[in-house]
C-alpha cells in the first residue's frame, strides 16, 4: 500500500492534459508517466528512476484535475527523495536558502541589490551560477519586518483581548516587510494581538532543490514551534500561500514529518478573517474614498489549498474594489524553478497566457498571495502585484474598524 494512492489511477491522462510543464518542455515525462505509471516500475526496480522528474514544478495542477484523487506530485517528489541522485549545486543551494541568503544580504542590502540588478552582476550570476540573466531579483530590504515589529509593536500586543501567532516567512522578513506591517495593523484593528514564532523558512525551495535533510530539519523545527503555539491556544496565521501549503501538506506527504496536531491550525489570513466575518465575530469598516481596479491571479498552491474563495469574498466586500478574477493558469515561476537558466524559457512560456490576460484586463494592480508569483508577474508584465492583506490594510478604515470591534488601541 502507498499513501499517495497511486493504485487508484484509472489511466485517463487527465492530469497530463492540465500540466503546464508538459505543454512546453519535451524533456519532462508528464504527471501520469512521472507519477503513478513510473511508480509501478520504480517499486520493482529503482533503476527506472528518471532524473527528468526534476522538471516538475510541484504546482499541483495535476492533482487538482485528477478525478481519482491520486496525489501525483507527491508521488513524484517522494520518488525524487527516495531514488534521486540530484545533488544541489551551489546555485541551487543559494536559491533555496532563502533565509540564509537574507541574513547574509541584509547588512549589505544596497550593495547586493545593486550588484544583482546590474548588468555585470546578472552576467556573472548567469555565467558562473546558472541563474538566468533575464531575471530581476527581488530587492533585499535593509530593515526587516521582525526588527520593526520588536521595536515598534511588540510591547503593545499583549493588550489585545485575543492573540494569534504569525508565521511571516522569508520574503516578508527580507523583501516585503510592508506585508507583515499591514498584517499587524489589520489584526490589531480586529482586536487580535500578534505574537511571533520561533520560525524557520518553511523549506519549500529546499524540497524543489533536493536538499531533503535541511528541509526535514526546518519542518521539524517549525512543527515544534507551532505545537507550542497551538498548545497555548494560538492559531498560526500566515500571509504566503506556498509556505502555508507546504507546512500543511508537504511536511507530512513528502517529508514524512507529522504535523497532525497543528495542521488545521495553520491558516492563511484571508481564510482567518473571512471566517470571523462570516460568523459575525468581527466587523470590517471600509474607507469611503478607496477605489481600485484589481485583477486577482490565483497562485497554483492557492488552487490546491482551495482557498481562493476566501480572498475573492474578502476583496468583494470592499465597496470601492473593482475585481476581475483571472482565468486559472500558472505564472511559470514555481519558486526557484524559473530562476534557473535551464528553465527560464519554459518558465516564461508557461506564464505567457497569464501575462497576456493581465495586459488585456489592464488593472491598476494585480493581487496574489504568493511572492514568487509577484516577482514573476512584475518582471514579465510591469504591473505591480500586491498581497491581499496589503490591499485590506489600505481599504480598511483601521480606526473605525478598531472601534467597531471594541478595540481601544
Amino acid at each position, binding site marked *: 500500500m502507498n499513501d499517495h494512492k497511486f493504485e487508484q489511477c484509472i489511466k*485517463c*491522462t*487527465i492530469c*497530463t*492534459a*492540465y500540466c503546464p510543464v*508538459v*505543454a512546453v518542455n*519535451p*524533456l*519532462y*515525462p*508528464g504527471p*501520469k*508517466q512521472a507519477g503513478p*505509471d513510473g511508480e509501478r516500475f520504480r517499486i520493482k526496480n529503482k533503476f527506472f528512476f528518471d532524473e527528468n522528474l526534476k522538471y516538475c514544478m510541484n504546482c499541483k495542477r495535476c*492533482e*487538482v*484535475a*485528477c*478525478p*481519482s*484523487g491520486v496525489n501525483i506530485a507527491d508521488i513524484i517528489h517522494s520518488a525524487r527523495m527516495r531514488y534521486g541522485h540530484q545533488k544541489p549545486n551551489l546555485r541551487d543551494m543559494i536559491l533555496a536558502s532563502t533565509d540564509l541568503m537574507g541574513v547574509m544580504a541584509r547588512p549589505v542590502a544596497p550593495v547586493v541589490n545593486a550588484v544583482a540588478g546590474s548588468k555585470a552582476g546578472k552576467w556573472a550570476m548567469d555565467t558562473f551560477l546558472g541563474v538566468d540573466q533575464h531575471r530581476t531579483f527581488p530587492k533585499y530590504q535593509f530593515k526587516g519586518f521582525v526588527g520593526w515589529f520588536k521595536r515598534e509593536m511588540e510591547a503593545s500586543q499583549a493588550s489585545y483581548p485575543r492573540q494569534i501567532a504569525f508565521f511571516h516567512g522569508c520574503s516578508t522578513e527580507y523583501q516585503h516587510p510592508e506585508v507583515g506591517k499591514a498584517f499587524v495593523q489589520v489584526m490589531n484593528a480586529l482586536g487580535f494581538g500578534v505574537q511571533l514564532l520561533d520560525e524557520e523558512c518553511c523549506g519549500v525551495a529546499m524540497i524543489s532543490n533536493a536538499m531533503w535533510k535541511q528541509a526535514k530539519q526546518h519542518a521539524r523545527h517549525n512543527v515544534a514551534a507551532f505545537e507550542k503555539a497551538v498548545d497555548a491556544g494560538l492559531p498560526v496565521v500566515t500571509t504566503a500561500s506556498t509556505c502555508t501549503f507546504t507546512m500543511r501538506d508537504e511536511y507530512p506527504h513528502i517529508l514524512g514529518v507529522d504535523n497532525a496536531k497543528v495542521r*488545521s491550525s495553520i491558516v492563511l489570513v484571508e*481564510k482567518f478573517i*473571512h*471566517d470571523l466575518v*462570516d460568523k459575525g465575530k468581527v466587523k470590517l469598516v471600509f474607507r469611503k474614498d478607496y477605489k481600485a481596479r484589481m485583477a486577482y491571479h490565483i497562485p497554483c498552491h492557492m*488552487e*490546491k*489549498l*482551495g*482557498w481562493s*474563495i*476566501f480572498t*475573492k*469574498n474578502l476583496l468583494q466586500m470592499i465597496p470601492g474594489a473593482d475585481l476581475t*478574477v483571472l482565468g*486559472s493558469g500558472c505564472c511559470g515561476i514555481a519558486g526557484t524553478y524559473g530562476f534557473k537558466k535551464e528553465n527560464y524559457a519554459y518558465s516564461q512560456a508557461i506564464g505567457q497566457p497569464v501575462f497576456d490576460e493581465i495586459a488585456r484586463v489592464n488593472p491598476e494592480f494585480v493581487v496574489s498571495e504568493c511572492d514568487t508569483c509577484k516577482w514573476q508577474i512584475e518582471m514579465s508584465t510591469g504591473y505591480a502585484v500586491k498581497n491581499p492583506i496589503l490591499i485590506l490594510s489600505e481599504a480598511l478604515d483601521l480606526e473605525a474598524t478598531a472601534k467597531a470591534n471594541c478595540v481601544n488601541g
Partner: protein
Amino acid sequence: MKYDVVLIGGGLSSLVCGISLQRTGKRCLMVSGGQNALHFSSGAFGLLGFRPDGSAVERPLEELDKLPANHPYRKVGAAKMHEYVNRVKPFFASCGVMLDGDPERNSWRLTPTGTVRPSWLAMSDVTLYEDSVVSIGRKALIANIAGYLDFNTAFLAEGLEKAGVTCRLEAVALPEFERLRTSASEMRSVNIARVMDHDQVWKKFVEQVCVLLRDEDVVVLPEVFGLQDEHVLEQIRECIPARVVFVGTMAPSVPGIRCQSALKTAFEQAGGEFLMGDEVISSEMDGERVLSVRTANLGDTVLEADHFVLATGGFFGRGLQATAEAVSEPVFGLDVDAPEERTQWYNPDFFAPQPYTRFGVHTSENLRAMKAGKEMENVYVIGSELGGADALCEGSGAGIAVMTGFKAAEMING
C-alpha cells in the same frame, strides 16, 4: 458560508443545473473532486440510442413510455422531456458551445472503429449523418499525425472498408511535434491539441493534408483540433476540398474538455463559485433536511444552503461505493437502488448488460433523494448518480445529465 444552492460534483449534469439556477438569480456554489466524465465524451451527446434488445432508436421521445418506471426520463416526465429537448441547443449556444443535430430525431456518427452509431446532438467536431445506411463516402483519406498511436487508423480503415469505403492511410510529420515525440507517453490527444491550437501549426497540417489528397471525397482526422476555439473546425472544413470527418480519440477528449471549460466559464460568468479539486466529506442534517456540508479543503468553514444537488457521477465519478457487503452513497448515506445479494450485481458474461450499471441513488418522482425510506426535503439527485438507467447500453448518459439538470433547477426554482 451561506448559498442558495450547493451543487456537489462538477460534471455535465451539475454544470447544466448550476448555470440554469445561477442565471435565474440563485447564488450557487459547486464543489468538484477533480475532472469528470466529459473528458471521455466522443463529442456527441446521446439521449436514447438503443432499445434493450439492441435495436437503434430513431425518435427517442416516442420511446419514453416503454422505459422502466424508475428511469430518470420517466421522472422528468414526457411533457417536460418535450420542452427540454428543444431548449438544449439554445442553452449550450448561450454558453459558447454550438450543437448540431435534430433534437427530436437521432442522427448517426462515425465511431473510431469505422462503424456508425446513433447520436442525438453533437459538438462541431462531429459530423452527423441523417441515417445509418447513408454512405460515408466513396474513398477516404485517413490522415494521422506521425507518431500518434491513440488514433487507430488501421482499425478505422478496416471498419470503413467493410462499409464499402476505400481507404488510404497517411501520416503527416510536422517538426512542431518532434518535441512531443521524444517522450512517447506524451503523444496524447490533448498534448497534440495544445500544439495544434497555434494557427500556424494546424494550417501547416491542413496544407499537408491537401497535398496528400488525391481523388478522395472524404478526409478523416482525429479530434485534436480547436481545443480553445471551436471555430477552427469550421475553418479546417473550408480549407480542405473534401468532406472532413473528425473521429474520437482515446481520452482525454478534446471536444469534451472544450465543452467542460465553456460550461464552467458560463457558470462563473453568471456569478457562480466553482471549487475545483475539493470534495464534500460530511454533512449536517436535521430530520429530512440537509443543513450544511463540509469539504476537505475548507476545513471548519461549513457550507450552508437551502438546497443541495448531488451530481457525483455514480460509480465512475466516485458517487457510489461498493464494498463486499453493500453499495452505498458516501456523501449523505442515501438509499441506493441495488439488490442486496452481491451475486446479482453483475452478469458473469462480461459482454452482457451489467446490472450494476443501473445502480444509483433512489429518488422520489421529483428527483428528491430517499434516505432510510424517507424523501429528503432539499436534496436533488441528477446525472449518472441516479439509478434506473443503463446509460452505456442505452446511449443516454449525456441526455440524462442534461434533462435531470434542467428538471432539478426547475424544482428548486419552484
